[in-house]
Structure formats: C-alpha cells, structure tokens
C-alpha cells in the first residue's frame, strides 16, 4: 500500500537475496526461544482469576486479611460402613489434620478439624456454661474417650459443619495464602495439589476414603487433564500432516510447513517465558489455537506454491510469488487477529488479559514464521518437473464444484443465500437468550460430572449442611456495632431475609451466633434465642465469640453474613445477588452497609458480572477492528461488510450453540468466541483479496468469484476441514471444558469456512447489485492502487 516498488516486493527482493542468512538467523532465534520455552511452567493463580476492578472485589480485597479469601481447601474423610467414632477413624483424622498443616500455602491458624484447639463446645450447667475442646488434649482413641467425643461433638454444634449430618464423615478445612507473607513468594498450586493427592494416597484405604476439594485441587486436576492436550496435539498433528499431503501432494512441503508451525509454537512458549507468564491450565488451548491459525496460513502458502508450479514456475519463483501475494492479506488478517485478541483484555481479569496478550503475540509470530520464513524454506525445496506433473491435473479438480458455487455470486443465488443466513441469524438470536453467564452445572464444570473431584464435591454437599459454595456479605458499621441493638438487629433481619432467598442452603452471622450464646446464658432455654435489647447484656453475648470464628473483626465494626448456597450455577448466584441489592434498596440504613461480596460464590458473582458487562463491548470492538482493517486492506466498504457480516452471523450462532449445549460464558470459554472470529477473518481476507484482484482486471463479479474459488477456495475449504478435524478429537478429552471447546471450535471453524465461501460473496454480490455506482468506484480505486504500485 505504498509507493513503487511496493513494500511486499521490496521485502521479497531483500529476503530472497539473503535467504540463507535469514534462515540461519531464524534457526538461531528458534533455538533461543526453545531454550527459554523449556522453562515454561504450568502456573495457576487464584488471584489472577479475580476481576479486581469490580466493586465486589474491592470489598473482597479490603476484608481478605481478616476474614480469609475464597481460597479454601476441604479434606473430608468418610467411612464406608458404620460411623466416625472408631479408634481407626479418629487416628486417621488426626494424621490427616497434621498432614494438611504442612501443605505449602496453608494458613496454619485457619486449619480447622475436630482435632484443632479452635473447635470447642459449650455446655449449659446450673451456674452458667462450661466448655472445652471437642477433642481434649489427653484424648486417646479408645472406648473410654470415644463416647465423650461423641457427646462433645453434639454439644459443639459442629454436626453438619465439621462432622457429617449422619456421622459418616468429618472435615478438615483450611485457607490457602497465595503469597507467602514473609518471603513474598508465590504459591505453586501444582505443588499444593500434588501434596494433597499424596495425602489422599497415604491415608485412603478400603474402609476410609479421602475426598479433597477446593480451588487448588481443581487446578491440579485440570492441569492433569490438560496434559492430554499434548496427546490431542499429536493426533491433530498427524491428521493435519495426512491432509496437507493430500492437498499439496508433497511430503517435503508438508513437513516444511508443519515444522515451521511447530517453530511458531516454540516461539510462543519462549515469548511467554520472556513476558514472565506461565501457562494457565484454563488457557492451555491458546498454543493449540496459535498452531491451528499457523496451519491455516501455511496452507495458503502451499496452495499458491502448487498452483504456480503447475503453471510452470520453479520452486523459488513460486515461493517468491506466494510471499508477495500473501503478505498483504495474510499480514492484515494476522494483525486483525492480534488486535481482536487484545480487545479481550478489556475484561479486568489478569488471567484473561494474559491470555489476550499471549494469543496476540502468537499472531505476530505467525507473521514472521508463515508469511516470511515459510516461503523462504519452501523456495529451497527441490520441486521440479516430477512434482509439476503430479499436481498439474490436481488444480482443476474442484472446478465443477466451484462453478456450481459461483451461483451465490449471482443475484438470485445471493438473495437465497442471504435469506437462509437471515433465518439462521433470527433463530440463533432467539435461542441465544438461553445462554448463561457463569457455570451451568454444580461442581467444577471444567471437569466431567463423574470425575473424582466432582464426585468428592457431591459427597461433601450431600453429607454436610455447609456445602462448599459460600458468598459472604460484609456488614460494615461503626466500632462496637455488635453491642448496639439497633445495628445487630439489622444484621439479624438481613440474615433472615437471605435465608429465605431461593438457592440459599443456610446462613450464619454474628447475630445468629449471639442468639445462640444468649440462649446459653439463659440456661439453654430456647425462649431466649433472641438478641437482647440491653447493651450490657449484648456485651455478654458477644464476649465468648472469638474473632477466629470469622464472624467479626477485632473491634466488631465488620461482621460478615455467611451464606451457604446450594450450588454456584449462574442463575443461583444472580438470584442471591439481586436479593441482596433489593434488600439494600428497600432497607436503606445509615448505620449498617451490607456489601457484596467475598467467598468463592462472591468471586463468581463478580466474575460473571465482569464477563457479562465486557462481552458486548468486546465483540463490538472485535468487529470494529475487523471492519477497520478490512477497510484499510481493501479500501472497500463492501469488502469490509462482506467480511464482517458472516462473522457476526457465526458468532451469534455460536452463542445459540452454547445455549443448546449448556455451556456457560465464563473466563475459560469467553476467548473461544473471540478466537473463532480470528479464524474467520483469515478466510474472509484471503477470499476478498483475490476477488478484488480479479474484479480490477475487469471480470464480472460472478466470474471473479469463480476464479477466486479456483485459486484460494480449496485452501480455505481445506483449512476449515483440517482445523475442524483437529479440534473435533478434543471431544474425547479428560476435561469437560476442553471437550466443550472442541465442539464449539469445530463448529466455529466449519461455520466460518462456509460463511466465507458462500455468504461473503452473496453479501458482496447483493451490495454491488444494489449500489452499482459503488461497484464502479471501488473497482476503479482498487485498479488505481495496483497500477500505482507497478
């Protein structure tokens, strides 16, 4: 797009003059990247999945120190037969409590089990109440002590909390601290997960089972499952190799292209390390996508090579033509992709932003590896007459198909096609209303419902009253708020209102605890399960409640209302969040503020909102970027619209697919939509670029389109199929979200391919038909540019 000689030809001239040097430098850089990339580690972080800008998260950060974050690990021991009151079980529970204590990152003060001294019971006696540790220090696992522990557990109110409601299981609960307060070192979640798994291996047997849940364990299991990505990568690699050979009829060319595509991934890993990133288990698909997009550009190269050689060129000339022809459409496609991925970063979640940057970097690497280096490599291949005779017959093999498909470039076909697209759009638009933001299933949706983790989570939810899903609403008030009846009563009323919200399993707050203590001070008489109005009496009810309960801070100005939810489905969370906000609106208070939110469900609520508010602006930005770059590349309004409209249809169809498949829009699935658009742009840019070059030679639209299909249609068709086959294998993954992504991406790749081949020309044909003057103007402008360039 510059003065003569054009940038591509100048670059081509320079590159091929120094092609040996270029390759040596590239090889050295690849070695360096490989050396760096070898240091790449799986890196999960809890805090980087948080939308820190969200108001909920500001409440979260403010109170995290005092009330713990949302980063809990629960280790449950369950018996197959009988109950927990056996010497064997109690010994095991003590061992597990001790073992968990030494897991890295565990906040030791937070370790809670029947064996920890922070678990106490109270008993009402004639002169007040007495109490002690549920399991006294002098406990021995024998028949003398077990009945005492059984009694103490009942008195402690831990039934349903640390002990299963049917006495068949007991919990050890811990909080993890992500950054070591002394060394400032970041917690290695994979190590935590491994040590937890070691605890399971060591203490589980036929009679006593160990169940472990929590963010750290989930990440470990996801990372384990994600290792299968390597296998799927291998499968996809083999399938791609076979298909590329079928397309280009040259093993040499196939392996040159695949080899360079592997280099792309190596550079990707190397740059991730240089950027200071690890690879997150949830974004492990990014390198795969970079590879896929690299293949799609490589196929364009092979396509051009094959055609030019069959027309009589030698390998070097064909490579030079391919270089010059693909640099502009390929380069703008990749820059568009890179910018489109960067827009994902408007979601204020560090993990997403890292994903956006690494995907964008990947696109820029492809510009180097596939638009620049690959043609140079191909120019060295000895593709002589023997190869030419092999491919000569090939080039025309799809001509019949292409001539049929050219019907979509004629007005009648175009109208029919656009009507079909409108119907698809309408149905999808209607269906996408069912798409949920957040999780659609209980348990960890990244893993299959019958995975060990989700079965463990189910067991804990079934046997304990507390569940694993917590949202804490923080009541902020003045100092000593809990001994002011007017204030604590408001907290009590709020707690009760929340208890009544659908989706809430149970609640607990300072008010709840104070009422229990007040009952205790009144000889256990349930008639006194109230908040006393008298401030001095309130002091008495507050005194026995220690800050370690997590129900109050040291001066009683902050009191979390803990809400255990039935699950963490998006609808459940939304219902609770709405109820809190409605309550605040209906009961404005000058003395108490109920602030959302901490706890894992509080985090999810914020994340869901962050994803939801970012989704539309993100897609709009993506489309705007695509339109802008198409406009810059083609200098054509029609070209921009014809490229972007099929993409919009596909992304709305993709939303409908997610609704049908029950896949929620969340951190791990959000990138798929944007990445899908990225692949779609490539097809559109290559096709319209060719189309335009034929139009300016004076061909009619339908003829130009036929020629375009002949030249680039098979590589688009082929790329779409190759990518789709590769991602389709993910359906057999150990990770549910990878399987879901596999379905979605297969679909997106195919739909975008079809959209580019049939819908793009239909839109362009119709627009040119409706606005003939526009057609003339755009063709004229395109011709001028070309002539100026030569």
């Amino acid at each position, binding site marked *: 797009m510059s003065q003569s000689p054009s940038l591509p030809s100048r670059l081509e001239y320079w590159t091929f003059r120094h092609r040996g040097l270029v390759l040596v430098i590239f090889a050295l850089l690849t070695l360096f990247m490989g050396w760096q990339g070898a240091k790449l580690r799986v890196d999960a972080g809890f805090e980087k999945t948080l939308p820190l800008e969200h108001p909920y998260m500001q409440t979260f950060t403010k109170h995290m120190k005092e009330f713990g974050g949302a980063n809990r690990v629960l280790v449950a021991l369950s018996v197959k037969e009988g109950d927990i009151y056996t010497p064997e079980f109690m010994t095991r529970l003590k061992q597990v409590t001790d073992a968990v204590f030494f897991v890295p990152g565990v906040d030791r003060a937070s370790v809670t089990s029947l064996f920890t001294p922070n678990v106490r019971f109270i008993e009402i006696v004639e002169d007040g109440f007495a109490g002690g540790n549920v399991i006294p220090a002098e406990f021995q696992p024998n028949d003398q002590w077990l009945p005492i522990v059984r009694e103490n557990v009942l008195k402690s109110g831990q039934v349903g909390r640390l002990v299963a409601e049917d006495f068949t299981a007991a919990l050890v609960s811990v909080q993890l601290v992500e950054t070591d307060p002394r060394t400032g070192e970041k917690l290695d979640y994979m190590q935590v997960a491994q040590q937890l798994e070691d605890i399971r291996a060591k203490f589980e047997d036929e009679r006593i089972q160990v169940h472990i849940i929590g963010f750290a364990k989930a990440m470990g299991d996801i990372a384990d499952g994600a290792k299968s990505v390597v296998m799927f990568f291998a499968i996809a690699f083999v399938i791609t190799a076979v298909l590329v050979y079928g397309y280009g009829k040259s093993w040499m060319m196939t392996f040159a292209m695949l080899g360079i595509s592997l280099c792309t991934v190596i550079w990707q890993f190397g740059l991730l390390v240089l950027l200071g990133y690890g690879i997150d288990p949830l974004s492990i698909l990014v390198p795969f996508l970079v590879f896929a997009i690299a293949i799609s550009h490589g196929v364009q190269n092979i396509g051009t090579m094959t055609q030019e050689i069959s027309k009589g060129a030698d390998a070097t000339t064909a490579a030079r033509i391919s270089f010059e022809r693909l640099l502009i459409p390929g380069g703008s496609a990749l820059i568009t992709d890179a910018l489109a991925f960067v827009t994902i970063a408007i979601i204020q979640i560090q993990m997403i932003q890292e994903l956006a940057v690494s995907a964008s970097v990947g696109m820029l690497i492809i510009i180097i590896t596939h638009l620049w280096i690959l043609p140079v490599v191909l120019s060295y291949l000895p593709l002589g007459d023997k190869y030419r005779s092999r491919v000569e017959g090939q080039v025309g093999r799809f001509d019949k198909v292409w001539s049929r498909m050219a019907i979509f470039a004629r007005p009648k076909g175009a109208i029919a096609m656009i009507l079909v697209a409108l119907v698809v759009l309408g149905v999808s638009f209607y269906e996408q209303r069912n798409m949920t933001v957040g999780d659609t299933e209980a348990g960890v949706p990244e893993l299959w419902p019958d995975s060990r983790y989700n079965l463990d989570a189910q067991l804990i939810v079934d046997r304990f009253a507390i569940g694993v899903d917590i949202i804490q609403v923080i009541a902020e008030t003045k100092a000593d708020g*809990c001994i002011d009846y007017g*204030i604590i*009563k408001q907290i009590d009323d709020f707690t009760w209102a929340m208890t009544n919200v659908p989706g809430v399993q149970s609640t607990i707050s300072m008010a709840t605890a104070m009422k229990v*203590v007040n009952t205790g001070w009144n*000889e256990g008489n349930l008639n006194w*399960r109230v908040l006393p109005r008298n401030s001095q*009496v309130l002091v008495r009810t507050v005194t026995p*409640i*220690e800050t370690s309960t997590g129900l109050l801070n040291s001066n009683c100005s902050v009191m979390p209302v803990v809400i255990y939810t039935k699950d963490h489905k998006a609808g459940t969370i939304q219902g609770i969040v709405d109820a809190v906000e409605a309550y605040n609106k209906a009961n404005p208070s000058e003395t108490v503020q109920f602030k959302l939110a901490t706890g894992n469900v509080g985090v999810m609520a914020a994340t869901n909102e962050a994803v939801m508010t970012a989704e539309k602006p993100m897609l709009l930005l993506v489309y705007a970027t695509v339109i802008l770059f198409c406009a810059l590349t083609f200098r054509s309004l029609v070209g921009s619209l014809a490229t972007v409209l099929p993409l919009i249809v596909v992304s709305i169809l993709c939303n409908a697919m997610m609704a049908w498949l029950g896949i929620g829009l969340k951190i791990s699935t959000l990138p798929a939509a944007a990445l899908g658009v990225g692949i779609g742009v490539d097809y559109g840019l290559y096709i319209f670029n060719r189309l335009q070059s034929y139009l300016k030679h004076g061909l009619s639209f339908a003829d130009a389109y036929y020629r375009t299909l002949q030249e680039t249609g098979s590589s688009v068709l082929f790329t779409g199929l190759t990518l789709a086959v590769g991602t389709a294998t993910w359906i057999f993954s150990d990770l549910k979200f990878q399987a879901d992504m596999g379905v979605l991406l297969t679909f997106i790749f195919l739909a975008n391919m079809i959209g580019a081949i049939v819908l793009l020309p239909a839109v362009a044909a119709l627009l040119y038909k409706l606005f003939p003057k526009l057609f003339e103007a755009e063709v004229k402008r395109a011709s001028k540019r070309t002539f100026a360039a030569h």
Partner: protein
Amino acid sequence: MIVQASARIAAALLLAAGLPVSALAQTPAPSMRPAIMAPLASHSLVLAATRAGDRLVAVGERGHILLSDDNGTTWRQVPSPANAALTGVTFVDARHGWAVGHDAVILHTQDGGETWTLQHAEPELEQPLMDVLFTDASNGIAVGAYGLYLETTDGGATWTPRTVSEDDFHFNAVLAPTPETRLIAGEAGTLLFSADAGTTWTALESPYDGSFFDALVLGPQSFLVYGLQGHIFRTDDAGATWTEIDSGGTAGLMGGAVLTDGGVMLVGAQGTILTSRDGGHSFSATRRPDRVGLADIVQAANGGLILLGEAGPIPANP
C-alpha cells in the same frame, strides 16, 4: 465459618473489657414492627403451640404465627403486628386466643388466629413474657422474666402488673390445675402456688435450686415440673412433697404434653423426647437423630403429635 462459643468469659474481645456502655452512642432501636412474612417461617424456631378447635396455632421467633388446618401437615404464616419472638400461646375456645413474647408483647385474636391485634407491649422494660394462661375469655395471667406478672379481668383490654414474689427470678410457666388453683414454675427452683385463682400467691418449698422451664398438670393435686439438666420432679399433693424422676440424661427439658390416651411426653434440648406410659411416674428417653432442639410438643385433633423447636413444627415419628 464455624461458630465456636467458648466459656472463657474474658476472651479476646476488647469491647467486653470494662466498656463504658452508657457512653456508647446508641442507634435508635427499631421500634415494634409487624412480623415479616417469610417463606421459611414454618421451618424456623417455634416455641409454643396449642389447639384452637381443630386448628393448630404455633408461635415462634420474629413474631411468626403459624396455622395448620390439617393436623400439622402443612402450615401457613399469618400476619402479626409485632416482630418480637413469641414464647406462649393459649386459646379458650376455637376463636379466642392470646400469644405472648419478648418486648412484653401480648397479642389477641378473635377469629381463631387469622388476625391479631396488639394488646400490650413494653420493649423498654426489657422483660420478656414467657407464658400466658386464660381460664375463660375474661380472666388471664401472663408471666415472664424477672418476676414479671400481668393480669387481666377484661379479656386483655387492660393488663395490670403485680409483684407476686420477693425474688426477681424468671417465671417460665403458669398453669391452672383446677378452676381455683394456679401454679407458676420458674428460674432457680421457683414454684409459686395460688389457691384462690391468683389473688394470693405463696412460695412452695422447692425440691431443686436449678431452673424449671415448664410444668404439666396430671391431676388436681398431681403436677410435673421439669427443666435444667433434665431434672423432673413430681408431686401428688399439690406441691407439699416432691419426688425426683430420672430422665435418663442431662439435656434440659423445655416442654411437654399430657396425651389423650393418658401418656405423658416431655421434650427438650438435643432432640430429647421422654415418653411415659404410666401416667408420668417413669420415662423412657429417645433422641432424634438430627438432635434438633425442641421447645414443646402438641397433640393435634386427630391424635397426631407435633414437635416444636429449631426446625419449626415437625411431626413426631411414633
């Protein structure tokens, strides 16, 4: 998030240490508000229940009033003018009833519990009412904490306080063994007896210095009093002599009922249920597996038994 209440009174909280309570700026206490209608009202703490004809009426925390017209199978909450916890309820016939509770609230209904009016409330007194007794539609007694004693002769239109004991121990239950006699049981072994329908009261010699939470009338001269640490005492001579009955445990006993077949049942803390098949001379104890705290038990019109407590009104498994 686990509640741990330790008995260490001088615990970590600074605010308890000699805090100048009077100096604290108090947020104005929310005054009497109507009870909030809540879906889970019938699954939250209920403290007392009685029959109004064939209907069951239960009362509990937050001013909840629940009605059941199918012998306790289903319950519905009805509006109430006060949100203070209600601790006692009584009906003299199918239509006229009274409920009492915290903030010295007394509520009255004339339509079998569908609608309630506030007869009395004194939140600033800080003395909850614990029980109410009406022997006819005019004459009633309400008793409560720190010796609170209110009486009426006009169906509650006016309530007059009176001091009937020199101590200010809590009165937890008031009963009418015969048309003339009245019995009050309460804190620290408090037992008061009146032979003239409440005009004059005398203290009985108590067999126990712990608290009685409730009492039952087994006959004109025969009463059971029971409460803290599972203590049960029986008299067959209107309180002159008492014999202790073993409850088989130490769980506090909160309420009880004499059944139509002559059986006697007592309920209490940690799901404790005591049953007597010999007219209250001896009891056998069971515990509900869920260990839910029980406040009272009531027999429905069809003979079914309904437990009242932390989980709301729940049918007692026979």
